[in-house]
């Protein structure tokens, strides 16, 4: 089982190195297949460790240390992997969904001049993500955390000839670096107090409540930045500049959910800092609401899905923050299935239209892409949480958990239900606008040459979409709280759900019924407004403008951080660097020249002046000598 974990971790790294080192000696297709194979080998390793752990019993997690690479006094950290229920679950999701998406990329990226680089990055990303979820201590986790940030940066900016892509990559990197910094600070505090970065540290004994809160806040900062939660969320919509499979893999299925994994992994600490944990839950609730609202007015197909990703991660934060870790992880898993599916279906549409992403300019998609339409519909229904699709099982258990948690929980419960309504509305707005237009032009519209249309694409694209469609339907059936909870029991040794987050049966029932009803109501409203065209879309000018500007978060950050920083930089350049560091050396040189010009006059070249100076000097020395004596 340990060998499986190592295989899982190292296979994608080997794939990335091989593609990088072989360079142009392998064909572009070979690079794609190599990358796919490496990720599927990783999946095989994950399955191996899963079954190994199953046969041992899920409470028998095991560490394996390759070597200790950092030792300072009694503090030491090693290249250490951990196989336990939580990490095997993440390994399966990352390598499984990752493998499907890399396979999909072979079709999607076909013909791109830099395919090899793309696949090397993809393998690197999968390796980094596996390092993050498999690491046996917080230091290695931080290393994986930074590496996924790096690969995300590289892949968002993959089309580096587009200035917007480069800007988006930088934005994502900087936002993530902020999170990395707060996490690193939290680790410093942790090392100072407990002298350890192991997951098993007893936080209660070694940490004061202030220190615990500080550490938890630092970790929450990292989690919020990586998972695009308010207030560190602005990078995710922009990250849609990357290729669509990248959005599916990194910005929907795996990397952005790392924050939820982090909270589940370090939950003993968060439980000692209960306030911070509740802040995380509140942050999730705020994000799911705001992202749902903003998603209503976006016109870029990928941005709508990106906002829905933020919103769903908000649900996961809500669940994990309240202590329902298993529910959060469950939603993480089903979300990985249906969100990757939605992105890849959107990718088929974009591929078919030769790069068009504006949902108002997608004529004839319904007839040209019948299978994609069904796949998208499956993903959308799973996202809204209509039974028996997977989202129903995972999302409703989170909403029910909120109802059980006192008055604060009830507020969150209401927000989560509102979110369910919004989810139905924005998801089916997207669906109806893209796929259900009856006035769709039958032939290619003007400006669209028929050669620009690809149809549904090669089998490498359709197979992953098909597999994920099936998973999006059945993925939720492994748990139906409170009757059938194998996943919660599987995760129990690592992340036991808190008592306050275990709803009773009637709470489950009420929440589920309300969530489904509101979701269906959202779909109904979306149908009335966008599907049947029987009603005009209500317009509130001010609200719409605010939402189209994403509630002015970018403008706000620009005014608070970017502009003062630029002003200060300009001030320092003109007031400090300019006079002190730029012109000073030049002035020194000029002044030296001026002085030298004056001194040069003494050097007459006349013997007698030299002798005179010599004699005068001697006379002065003699007089001084006499006087002093």
């Amino acid at each position, binding site marked *: 089982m340990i060998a499986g974990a190592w295989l899982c971790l190292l296979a994608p790294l080997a794939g990335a190195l091989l593609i990088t080192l072989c360079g142009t000696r392998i064909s572009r297709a070979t690079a794609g297949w190599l990358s796919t194979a490496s990720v599927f080998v990783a999946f095989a390793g994950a399955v191996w460790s899963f079954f190994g752990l199953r046969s041992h019993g899920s409470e028998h997690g095991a560490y394996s240390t390759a070597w200790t690479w950092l030792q300072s006094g009694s503090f030491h950290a090693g290249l250490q992997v951990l196989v336990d229920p939580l990490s095997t679950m993440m390994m399966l999701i990352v390598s499984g969904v990752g493998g499907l998406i890399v396979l999909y990329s072979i079709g999607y990226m076909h013909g791109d001049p830099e395919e090899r680089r793309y696949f090397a990055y993809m393998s690197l990303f999968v390796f980094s993500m596996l390092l993050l979820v498999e690491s046996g201590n917080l230091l290695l986790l931080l290393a994986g955390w930074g590496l996924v940030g790096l690969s995300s940066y590289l892949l968002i900016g993959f089309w580096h000839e587009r200035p917007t892509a480069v800007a988006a990559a930088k934005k994502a990197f900087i936002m993530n670096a902020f999170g990395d910094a707060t996490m690193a600070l939290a680790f410093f505090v942790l090392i100072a107090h407990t002298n350890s970065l192991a997951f098993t540290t007893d936080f209660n004994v070694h940490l004061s409540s202030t220190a615990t809160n500080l550490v938890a806040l630092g970790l929450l900062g990292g989690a919020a930045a990586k998972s695009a939660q308010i207030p560190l969320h602005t990078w995710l919509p922009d990250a849609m500049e990357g290729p669509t499979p990248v959005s599916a893999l990194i910005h929907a299925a795996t990397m952005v959910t790392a924050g939820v994994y982090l909270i589940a992994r370090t939950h003993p600490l968060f439980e000692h800092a209960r306030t911070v944990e509740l802040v995380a839950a509140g942050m999730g609730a705020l994000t799911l609401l705001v992202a749902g609202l903003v998603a209503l007015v976006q016109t870029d197909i990928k941005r709508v899905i990106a906002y829905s990703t933020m919103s769903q991660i908000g649900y996961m934060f809500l669940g994990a923050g309240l202590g329902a870790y298993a529910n959060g992880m469950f939603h993480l898993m089903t979300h990985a299935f249906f969100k990757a599916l939605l992105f890849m279906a959107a990718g088929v549409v974009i591929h078919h239209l030769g790069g068009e992403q504006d949902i108002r300019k997608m004529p004839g998609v319904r007839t040209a892409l019948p299978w994609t339409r069904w796949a998208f519909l499956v993903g959308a229904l799973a996202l809204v949480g209509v039974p028996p699709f997977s989202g129903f099982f995972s999302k409703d258990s989170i909403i029910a958990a909120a109802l059980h948690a006192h008055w604060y929980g009830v507020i969150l419960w209401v927000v989560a239900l509102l979110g369910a309504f919004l989810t139905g509305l924005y998801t089916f707005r997207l669906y109806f606008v893209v796929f259900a237009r009856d006035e769709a032009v039958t032939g290619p519209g003007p400006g669209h040459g028929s050669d620009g249309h690809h149809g549904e694409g090669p089998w490498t694209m359709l197979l992953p979409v098909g597999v994920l469609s099936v998973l999006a339907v059945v993925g939720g059936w492994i748990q139906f709280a409170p009757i059938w909870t194998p996943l919660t029991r599987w995760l129990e040794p690592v992340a036991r759900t808190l008592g306050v987050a275990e709803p009773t049966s009637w709470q489950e029932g009420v929440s589920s019924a309300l969530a489904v009803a509101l979701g269906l109501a959202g779909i109904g409203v979306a149908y009335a407004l966008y599907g049947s065209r029987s009603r005009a879309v209500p317009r509130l000018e001010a609200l719409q403008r605010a939402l189209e500007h994403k509630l002015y978060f970018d403008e706000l950050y620009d005014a608070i951080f970017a502009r003062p920083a630029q002003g200060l930089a300009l001030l320092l350049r003109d007031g400090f660097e300019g006079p002190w560091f730029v012109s000073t050396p030049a002035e020194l040189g000029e002044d030296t020249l001026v002085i030298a010009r004056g001194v040069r006059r003494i050097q*007459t*070249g006349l*013997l*007698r002046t030299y002798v*005179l100076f010599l004699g005068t000097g001697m006379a002065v020395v003699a007089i001084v000598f006499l006087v002093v004596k």
Partner: protein
Amino acid sequence: MAGPSIAWYLGVSAFLFATGALGVLIRRNPLIVLLSLEIMLNGANLALIAFSRHARNGAGQIFALAVMAVAASEVCVGLGLVVAIHRRRLALDVDRLSELRG
């Protein structure tokens, strides 16, 4: 001890040195300048020997011998320079030889 007191010797020495120094300062012919330098050195020599005798110590005389050796070599170099200047048909005038470039 017979003979005039040391002050006389030092007086003559100072007179010789001053004469030589004046010659170096005001004459323009390099030959005369060299000659004046010799007079300065000999003035110094005289003082050294006078002190040597006054202190009943041979060290001053050794110094004087060293100074004579230096003077001889200096004259060699100096006269060599004068010949070189003459050969290049330059003016034998130290004021006009004020630059290192020939």
